[in-house]
């Protein structure tokens, strides 16, 4: 029963969130200096004033804001997100192809930063104050203060330009026919963006895991375990991992928003054809439909991460699970 109620309330929250995000994005775009008409026909258009007025009338650009938002909302609900001015394709198609690229990038970076960060965090926590711990902490704080695009540029300079190990950008080799592109080409192009995004996202999970491990090691139940003859290895595998893994996974899921932001910056540095570059292009071209579409889709993405984090906590932590079952 409780479960059903949770699903219902989460769905309701999602709907309210999406409505608010889209409304806010809509208002911001309408109030911005973007003129949809100019974006559409270009500044050097030879169209007559009557023709322009006709387009304005047809699009309903003179209607009051709530009415325009309502029209847009109704269309969205019918699956019509409009047409992208930049790509001359339906927004939904642009998002689909672009998102596929970005998801691969984000998920790889997410998994690597999560697994690697967790392991490193555990080691740092156990060897708190040691040499490795200090180095890693310094590294994490540095990386956390550095902007993602700067990290990307540094990786480009070192690995692509100086060492020539990786291509300098894009998702496939230039000048190759689509039919000739192999999976290895794609992977080769993915490596630097993935590394950049992994490094940009790793510090949080490392520092968090480290802090938790330090807290756990100083707790009473570790003293008790020691008094009962458990050795260092048994304490780590039986107690430390058990108590740190769940919050770490939860943190990693709720970090989808940082991941998304980092992805947008990294894609621009590497000219990777994902959602991030599409956002920049849409913004530069005054592509209102695409911007709105991306705003919606990013909200769904981030919300999903948080939702998974919430559910995981309820399912895996016995203290929450059992108290809800009552």
């Amino acid at each position, binding site marked *: 029963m409780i479960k059903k109620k949770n699903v219902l309330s989460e769905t309701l929250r999602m709907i309210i969130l999406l409505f608010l995000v889209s409304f806010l994005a809509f208002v911001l775009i309408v109030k911005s200096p973007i003129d949809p008409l100019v974006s559409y026909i270009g500044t050097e258009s030879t169209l007559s004033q009557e023709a322009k007025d006709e387009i304005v009338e047809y699009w309903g650009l003179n209607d009051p804001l709530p009415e325009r938002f309502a029209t847009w909302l109704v269309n969205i609900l019918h699956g019509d997100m409009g047409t992208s001015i930049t790509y001359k394709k339906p927004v939904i198609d642009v998002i689909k192809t672009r998102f596929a690229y970005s998801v691969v990038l984000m998920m790889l970076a997410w998994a690597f930063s999560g697994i690697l960060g967790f392991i490193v965090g555990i080691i740092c926590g156990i060897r708190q104050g040691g040499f490795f711990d200090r180095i890693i902490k310094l590294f994490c704080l540095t990386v956390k203060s550095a902007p993602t695009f700067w990290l990307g540029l540094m990786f480009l300079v070192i690995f692509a330009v100086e060492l020539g190990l990786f291509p300098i950008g894009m998702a496939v080799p230039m000048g190759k026919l689509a039919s000739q592109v192999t999976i290895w080409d794609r992977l080769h192009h993915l490596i630097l963006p993935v590394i950049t995004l992994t490094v940009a996202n790793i510090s949080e999970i490392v520092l968090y895991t480290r802090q938790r491990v330090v807290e756990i090691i100083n707790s*009473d*139940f570790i*003293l*008790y*375990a*020691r*008094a*009962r*003859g*458990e*050795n260092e290895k*048994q304490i780590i595998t*039986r*107690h430390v991992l*058990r*108590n740190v893994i*769940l919050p770490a996974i939860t943190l990693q899921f709720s970090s989808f928003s940082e991941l998304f932001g980092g992805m947008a910056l990294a894609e621009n540095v590497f000219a990777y054809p994902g959602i991030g570059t599409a956002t920049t292009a849409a913004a530069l071209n005054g592509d209102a439909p695409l911007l709105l579409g991306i705003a919606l889709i990013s909200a769904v993405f981030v919300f999903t991460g948080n939702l998974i984090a919430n559910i995981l906590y309820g399912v895996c*932590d*016995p*203290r929450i699970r*059992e108290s809800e079952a009552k």
Partner: protein
Amino acid sequence: MKENILKIEDLVVAFSMYKSGTFKKEKLEVIHSLSLDVDAGEIVAVVGSSGSGKSILASAVLNLLPGNAVTGGKITYKGKEITKERQKELFGKEIAFIPQSVDYLDPLMKVGKQVQGVFGTDERRKELFSKYRLEEDTKNKYPFQLSGGMARRVLITGAVMGKPDLIIADEPTPGLDLEMAKETLDHLRSFADNGAAVLLITHDIDLALNVADRVAVFYAGTIVEVAPKSDFLAGKDALRHPYSKAFIDALPQNGFKPIPGSQPYAGSLPKGCLFLDRCPYKDDACTAEQAEREIRSGKVRCAHAS
């Protein structure tokens, strides 16, 4: 003469910590030349007021002191010092620990698995669960689901898993009603009657007098007097140290008579006798370090005791 199990000789525990407001480290001595021994088949209760550092004694024996602790003196088990190597052989097997509360259990590990520990077997756990009236499905519960009495019995089963010869119980009764506290102490009594040595650390002298064979009075980081239970039951005249006498006087059944002052803080101890500032009988002899003396089958650190 019974076999000696635990012997603590001149134990000193100090914490090195930063002096408040400065970057200078200072050593804060919290336990000063403490001596105590526990024989097979007896319960020795260490009694002292809350916050006087009694628990540090248990931590010192079990090598659980934090990294900034410096220790001196000697702790032997069955005549041999407890070294790091020997510790592996003893802890969880021959030497068991009963902690204060359920907080000492891993909150995310099922009770059964924790009771079993790393050395126990499932059969032994089953046997102990039925002996201590714990239902079999308790093993699938998490610590937060245990009631106070259940938690207590779980901690006891955990301790006796390895059939220990020495049990150290640190405040095993607070938060329990009288009946449950009695039950816990009865368990301790039966361990001792079966030949184990029990070191009971508590602030509750009434309960201690119920089960203990000998009582050690803890004051300001050392043990000022060790005496058979009968001396405590006989009243303050049978006791040796002025603090023990005052302790007895301050009990509810003896009229709640307090003495002025409070226990000195570890950082500002008086020279010589630690009870100096509050003692009604103080004189020049008290300013020297008080050595342990044997008087009437008890031990005391007071120049005037008789």
